[in-house]
């Protein structure tokens, strides 16, 4: 897609609704071409991004002006720390040089401090590649780069991510990334091609805080997990793609759901997975297998529904152009990759695939996830056997633990707000910094819920955030992770809210349901709890409940206690 076509397509995706993800890009060089490119790459992923550019060379003041934006991205170029620094660097005297170092260090500290409450801050590592790529000798610019990068890493805050811009420059090559011609005439150092690569590279971070994450990686088997066709070449005729399998194992260990979807005889593949010496990926890592002769579209649909994840969080790899196109046509939201003809190309591709599964801070829940998803699938099987759902739920021995304002689980709490789409009443995304602020505040109560049953521990899987004022409680956030749905746990969470309201001597509870494309299943939740529906504004419904009138469903077979 040409740059002009991208601008046009981006204008067509412009949506002026209130739900905007506001990004500010601050810089000490001209980077105005970032606006459309950043917006476009996010908008095609359904994040309604609006990019605002800071003033030229005004990062410090702009960090105050834009601190309330959803994200701030900083392009800070060493070459323009003072005008013409890229050719003056080796000539300025030691005092000037020292002063410059101290000035920039102080500015970094001030900017991080100004932005300390901003949800997400991305700052590029200082780079000199454009200017000293041919230099064998160490240069002052190179030395300064190391000093400043050291300072960045030493003063990093939890809401800041440092982006290694050299990786992006080397991917597009120094000569296509940067332009001396435009730098000289317009202080525009980077090319449009560079910006495309840059925003594709950082996008997974922004998408993940917007709840757009890839969760499952599904492999075909023949010529995808191994070279050869099992049915034709036989057990001894196939050769494992060890590099690809190793990366899949690595992803499984980070909590990515790895699965198989292949047209084969189940027992044949099962035998390979269990007994083939070359297999690195095994049943310990594989959560789900659809090995049969049905079409792949149906199989992928079943995978998503059994795992209770959205189709758009699925990534699928297959070697057959026919299957790939079939899936692309019928399930356009699935990200599909075709295995390239040469093995080294496949090794390169699998790294690109693994980049899609960005997880800023893997939590212990992520690491246990393979086990948890498997437990969930086991339960689906036994659910089919038990007809009376109530009896079944009673037999589960479910226990819910309340963790109130618990600073130790901030990471997991923030992650739930960012990843939960279906059972989420308001779909408000919060960073760790936001959650810490809530926990420390007297007027906000953050209740996280751990869920356990006889099949295993699901970890922290529910969240309620309450705004408490003198005579009212407002339910800001109410969500349940999809792995504990369908067990009436939400009713016990409501019981816990009522307990807290009574303890705080509050008479009225206000709540809100904000409709999204994914949370239809909870549109009547507050009705079911007995709330009175109130005003509707656009996609948001207000609810109110008189605490005295609340009638618990008394699902007492679900234990409720304080966690620690």
């Amino acid at each position, binding site marked *: 897609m*040409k*740059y*002009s*076509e991208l*601008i*046009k397509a981006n*204008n067509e995706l412009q949506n002026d609704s209130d739900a905007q993800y506001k990004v500010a890009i601050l810089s000490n060089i*001209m980077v*105005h*071409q970032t606006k*459309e490119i950043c917006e476009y790459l996010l908008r095609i992923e359904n994040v309604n991004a609006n990019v605002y550019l800071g003033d030229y060379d005004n990062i410090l003041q702009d960090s105050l002006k834009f601190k309330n934006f959803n994200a701030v991205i900083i392009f800070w170029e060493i070459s323009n720390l003072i005008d013409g620094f890229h050719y003056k660097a080796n000539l300025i005297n030691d005092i000037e040089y020292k002063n410059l170092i101290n000035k920039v260090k102080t500015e970094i500290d001030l900017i991080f401090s100004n932005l300390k409450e901003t949800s997400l801050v991305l700052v590029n590592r200082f780079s000199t590649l454009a200017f000293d790529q041919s230099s064998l000798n160490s240069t002052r610019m190179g030395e300064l780069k190391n000093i400043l990068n050291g300072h960045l890493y030493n003063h990093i805050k939890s809401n800041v991510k440092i982006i290694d811009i050299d990786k992006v420059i080397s991917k597009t090559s120094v000569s296509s990334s940067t332009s001396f*011609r*435009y730098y*000289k*005439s*317009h202080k*525009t150092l980077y*090319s*449009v091609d560079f910006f495309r690569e840059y925003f594709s590279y950082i996008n997974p971070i922004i998408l993940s805080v917007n709840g757009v994450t890839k969760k499952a990686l599904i492999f075909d088997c023949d010529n995808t997990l191994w070279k050869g066709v099992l049915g034709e070449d036989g057990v001894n005729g196939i050769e494992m793609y060890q590099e690809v399998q190793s990366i899949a194992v690595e992803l499984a260990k980070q909590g990515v759901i790895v699965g198989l979807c292949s047209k084969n005889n189940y027992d044949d593949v099962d035998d390979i997975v269990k007994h083939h010496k070359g297999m690195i990926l095994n049943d310990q890592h594989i959560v789900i297998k659809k090995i049969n002769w049905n079409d792949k579209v149906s199989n992928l649909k079943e995978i998503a529904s059994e795992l209770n994840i959205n189709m758009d969080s699925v990534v699928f790899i297959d070697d057959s152009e026919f299957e790939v196109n079939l899936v692309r046509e019928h399930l356009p939201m699935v990200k599909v990759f075709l295995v390239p003809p040469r093995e080294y190309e496949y090794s390169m591709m699998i790294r690109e695939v693994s980049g899609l599964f960005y997880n800023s801070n893997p939590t212990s829940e992520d690491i246990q996830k393979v086990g948890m998803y498997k437990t969930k699938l086991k339960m689906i099987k036994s659910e089919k056997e038990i007809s009376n759902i109530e009896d079944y739920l009673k037999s589960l021995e479910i226990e819910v633990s309340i963790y109130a304002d618990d600073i130790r689980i901030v990471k997991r709490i923030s992650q739930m707000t960012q990843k939960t789409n279906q059972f989420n009443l308001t779909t408000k995304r919060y960073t760790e910094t936001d959650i810490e602020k809530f926990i420390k505040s007297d007027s906000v109560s953050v209740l996280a819920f751990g869920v356990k049953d006889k099949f295993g521990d699901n970890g922290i899987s529910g969240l309620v955030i309450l705004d408490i004022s003198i005579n009212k409680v407002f339910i800001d956030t109410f969500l349940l992770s999809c792995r504990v749905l369908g067990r009436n746990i939400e009713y016990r969470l409501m019981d816990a809210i009522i307990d807290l309201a009574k303890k705080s001597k509050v008479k009225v509870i206000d709540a809100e349901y904000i409709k999204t494309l994914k949370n239809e299943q909870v549109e009547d939740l507050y009705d079911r709890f007995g709330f009175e529906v109130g005003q509707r504004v656009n996609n948001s419904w207000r609810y109110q409940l008189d605490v005295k009138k609340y009638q618990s469903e008394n699902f007492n077979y679900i234990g409720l206690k304080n966690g620690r």
Partner: protein
Amino acid sequence: MEDRIKAVVSAVLNISIDDINNDSSPDTIESWDSLKHMNLIVALEEEFEIIFDEEDFEVMLNFQLISLTIREKI
């Protein structure tokens, strides 16, 4: 070729192709500011696979002059 240039100008400045004539310039089109002008130059270089010289930047002051400059390059 005129049409290709118009298509790029229309996309970059977010205006209708019909609103572009030979005299169109930053003075007559509101969205055509100095930043958009830069984007336009980048987009035209990509479209026609040409490279403008620094002197060209100073000449390309309206649609007709842009179009003439491009003609000289290809």
